[in-house]
């Protein structure tokens, strides 16, 4: 399997309130279709690492490459466009836009990408919602969904552009066991059958155990992978 994500000698510092070396010489590679979990104690730098990989945080030394595209040193607009097409993001909290329907929330990243026609985007959004068993709630205002429902819509949103990498910052952190199980199965299926790479930061050891590979971090360093 080919390498889809590569981080080499990544270092990051926090300067506020005092200078702090968060990530120390992080280097690793992720293969296509791999389901990877990032674990470690609070403050070990795993979330910080995830945000570097997500291209949203650009303040670091070292080099990050996704899909053979060197992200380090790119302009913000170029990174936004890359993120739009290649990265899907799921957060601990769903972060749906409350004014829009569930369907519209899913459609927005695709409309931004502007690769398909409006009706195609709608069909694809329905398809993703159906995958997560949320098609019945498509036209509901997203502010009125329950936590589990909203999180599933958020996952559908992350999938809409068929991203190369799906990143999750504790994607099941707010879900009960049943919903956690559903979400896990969906992610696993995406990795196995669609070849999409999944990187999830998690505190849940049970969740981590079931993934293909675990990277464990401690005090800004990778201690096992």
């Amino acid at each position, binding site marked *: 399997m080919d390498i889809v994500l590569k981080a080499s000698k990544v270092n990051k510092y926090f300067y506020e309130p005092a200078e702090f070396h968060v990530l120390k010489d992080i280097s690793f590679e992720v293969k296509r279709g791999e389901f990877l979990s990032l674990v470690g104690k609070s403050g070990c730098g795993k*979330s910080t690492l995830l*945000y570097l990989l*997500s291209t*949203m*945080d650009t303040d670091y030394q070292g080099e990050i490459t996704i899909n053979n595209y060197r992200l380090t040193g790119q302009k*913000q*607009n170029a990174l*936004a*466009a*890359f*993120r*739009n*097409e290649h*990265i899907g*993001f799921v*957060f601990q909290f769903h*972060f*749906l*836009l*409350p*004014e*829009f329907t569930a369907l519209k929330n899913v459609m*927005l*990243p695709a*409309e*931004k*990408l*502007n690769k398909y026609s409006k009706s195609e985007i709608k069909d694809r959004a329905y398809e993703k919602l159906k995958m997560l068993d949320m098609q019945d709630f498509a036209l509901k205002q997203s502010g009125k969904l329950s936590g589990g429902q909203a999180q599933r819509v958020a996952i559908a*949103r992350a999938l809409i552009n068929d991203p190369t990498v799906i990143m999750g*910052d504790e994607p099941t952190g707010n879900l009960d066991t049943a919903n956690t199980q559903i979400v896990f199965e969906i992610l696993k299926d995406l990795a196995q059958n669609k070849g999409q790479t999944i990187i999830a930061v998690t505190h849940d050891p049970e969740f981590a155990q079931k993934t293909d590979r675990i990277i464990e971090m401690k005090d800004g360093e990778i201690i096992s992978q």
Partner: protein
Amino acid sequence: MIGVNLEIARTHLLAKKRQTLIAMMGVTFGIGMYILMISFMNGFNEYLEDTLLSSTPDIHIYNDIKTDYSHSILDAVYDTTKGVNIVYHPKPKDITPNVHNPKQIIADIKTFDNIMAVSPQLSSQVFYNNGPVQIPGTLSGVNIMEESKLTNLAEKMKTGAIENLLKVDNGILIGQGLASKLNASVGDLVTLASPQGTSMSFRVVGTFQFGIGSLDNVKSYVSLKNVQQLLGRDNQYVTDINVKMKDYTQAKALAAVFARKYGYKSEDWQVANASAMVSITIRNMMTLVISFTLLVVAGFGIYNIMNMTIQNKLKDIAILKAEGFAGRDIMQIFLFQSLTIGFFGAMMGLALGYAMSYGVWSLPFPKNEFISITRFPVTFHLRHYVFGIVFGMLTTLIAGLMPSLKAGKIDPVAILRG
């Protein structure tokens, strides 16, 4: 791609209808008051200019009596190299204040472009006799039809008509204020005395009102011939030539040409009404300052509301950025919101301004026999409305730009990590 941004902006605006409406109202009142102010001020200025212009000719040509006595004609007779000629307290003698060759000058003026009417005039100070009381005033001998083209006298008549002056022998048109002082109405006889001591009786054939006390209380018109008779002058004797132009803004340039060509003092209306022109300029400036303030206040309102909206939408902005919307897209979303507020606010402002202007225009002006207006002067010019909407949009663009740029620069990581 812009389509998505517009759609998000529209959804944001519609989701908070009340807040959107309140933001719009800030602009609405600003623009509305601007329209009212400018229409009212402009109406007032136009009314003033109109009364001024109707009582002042565009160009006034007259014989300015020479007051320069630095050279004496003695110098030509007695050689100044041998001595000094001193004349104590020289006074003019045998000088007539008339314009020579008036017919020729009038015929020549009429050959210029842009001339609407030329009216020769013979003016004199007179006393109006009312029993034993003598009221000082002025008398103008005119060709009444030409004069009416200059001053719109036909429209200023309160009683009688200007044509009567042609029909009735020794007819006189007198100012409304003067008529009431003399207790004279149409059909009555009034007696006038000239500075030379001669006197004549005239029959009142009409009264006029310019709306300017300094005219209505002292002035009257008779035929040119009658004044020449009263003063004992020949039928070529004329003291003033008044010119009305098709485009009065050209008066200044033409006045200079006349002065050079005929050798008489030639004054344009702006010079004649310099102090009134100053007050018009000051009023225009004041209107501009107040309007600007109103719009800036509306702009600050929008600035505040946009800042607040963005503060409330930090998470949404972060998530849009995580989804791949660039800083530029976020900026467009919020800029579009403030422009929408600006556009609809300004449109409503135009409607409000029109309604208020119309309301003021409909108000009857407090009744006053010395002023010829019956309602508040208000103008309805398209250009004010166009300017209002352009300026309103511009204000909201500037007010919305700063918060929108700030929104575009928001760092999503800090917000998403909590």
